[in-house]
């Protein structure tokens, strides 16, 4: 009888067992795939936001090209994302100059015209490099992101000018030389461990990945105050620069790691010997610092510890530099 029952239900049992085990296997694989796909998919999702931001940047600079070079004119052709920056020659001034100074002014302008004729792309690139700032970086980044092009023109009159075209690869080269393509930043405010902290012994990777400590980029320069003290040294063995603002026992400030533009905020107190500071990012507490101030040394030295949110403690060694 028992055997008969087994006979009757064994087939169904086999199918159920197989289905259950197969679902379990597939579920794990599915979660793994979800997690791995999240990164490239999220990057793809950002495409529109990055494109819109890039277009906005180009429009902004078109409206105010003085951000790049004073006295220039800009023209952004959205179709193809071509951005033209022109340095015009003021023909009114030329006419007035000629009226007053006669042949001498004409000669001066002739020399100017000749200098434009003799301009090379190397000279144009040198001109860009000399004027380079954050706005140039944003302009070039936006053009690259949109796979557009850049043209620098020297305009003598409405019929003759001299143009230099730059492909995105050439813009990347300038950005690299200007140092705008190095360093990292994070969305989340937590420093990543250095590559030496990674346990790669059990992992087979063709090319080891180096992820340096990185922080959120904070726009603008920190405020400058009279009671400001600047320090440099190390935190957890990594080079940092720090600024603290003292105000009757209250202390505020920030520090940042070398090679990173972003900063971590500090607030706390100073009792004449010890600094007790709280480290935060985006208003969220990320660590505590307890630092002794040694006024007897020259320069003044700070030494103590920082304890991160996980309870790990690291040494802090700093010296005043202003």
């Amino acid at each position, binding site marked *: 009888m028992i055997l008969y029952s087994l006979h009757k239900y064994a087939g169904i049992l086999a199918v159920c067992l*197989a289905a259950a085990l197969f679902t379990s296997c597939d579920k794990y694989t599915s979660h793994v795939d979800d997690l791995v796909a999240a990164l490239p998919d999220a990057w793809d999702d950002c495409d529109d936001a990055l494109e819109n*931001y890039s277009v906005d940047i180009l429009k902004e600079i078109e409206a105010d090209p003085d951000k790049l070079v004073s006295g220039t004119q800009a023209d952004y052709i959205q179709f193809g994302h071509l951005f033209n920056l022109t340095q015009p020659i003021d023909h009114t001034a030329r006419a007035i100059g000629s009226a007053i100074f006669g042949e001498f002014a004409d000669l001066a302008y002739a020399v100017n015209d000749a200098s434009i004729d003799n301009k090379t792309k190397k000279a144009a690139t040198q001109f860009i490099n000399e004027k380079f700032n954050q706005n140039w970086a944003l302009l070039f980044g936006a053009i690259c992101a949109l796979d557009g092009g850049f043209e620098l023109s020297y305009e003598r009159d409405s019929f003759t000018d001299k143009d230099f075209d730059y492909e*995105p690869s050439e*813009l990347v080269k300038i950005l690299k030389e200007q140092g705008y*393509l190095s360093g990292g930043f994070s969305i*989340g405010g937590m420093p*990543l461990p250095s590559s030496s902290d990674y346990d790669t012994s059990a*992992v087979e990777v063709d090319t080891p*990945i180096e992820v340096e400590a990185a922080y959120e980029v904070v726009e603008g320069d920190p405020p400058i105050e009279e009671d400001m003290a600047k320090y440099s040294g190390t935190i957890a063995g990594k080079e940092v620069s720090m600024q603290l603002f003292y105000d009757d026992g209250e202390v505020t400030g920030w520090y940042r790691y070398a090679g990173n533009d972003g900063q971590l905020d500090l607030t706390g107190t100073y009792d004449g010997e010890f600094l007790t500071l709280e480290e935060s990012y985006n208003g969220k507490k990320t660590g505590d610092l307890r630092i002794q101030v040694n006024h007897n040394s020259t320069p003044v030295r700070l030494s103590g510890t920082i304890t991160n949110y996980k309870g790990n403690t690291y040494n802090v060694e700093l010296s005043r530099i202003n």
Partner: protein
Amino acid sequence: MIKTIKYIATVIVAGMMLCGCDSTPSSSKILPDFVKKVNAESKKTGVTAIMSDEMLVLNLKLEKTPENYGKALMMRASQDAKDCFVESLTGRLCEGPVLEQIVNKELNLAFAITVDDMELNAVFTPKDIKKFMKENTK
């Protein structure tokens, strides 16, 4: 009787075969297995994984094209793009044994995008992960 034995044998064989498949690994092996699996498929997916004592990092290494450099530079400067990236990431993560293990082991989960020496990182703490696991399983 012979048929019954045949069915029982089918059950046993099916079980043996399926146990041999890569089903949910034991708890202690989940993360090392995950890292191995990700790296084994990195050529296909473009994503590699590295685990430290404090963090599991998934890294998407982008091709060194001007467009990727430009996008990364724009991402660095645009808060909207950063928000969009984080929102998309959190929306795509779901409950599962890997995330559970990350939370249990108090690891941080970092997503890194690199183009040459440019880096974009999004880091989630176990608290963050718990939050979106809870939200995604509502």
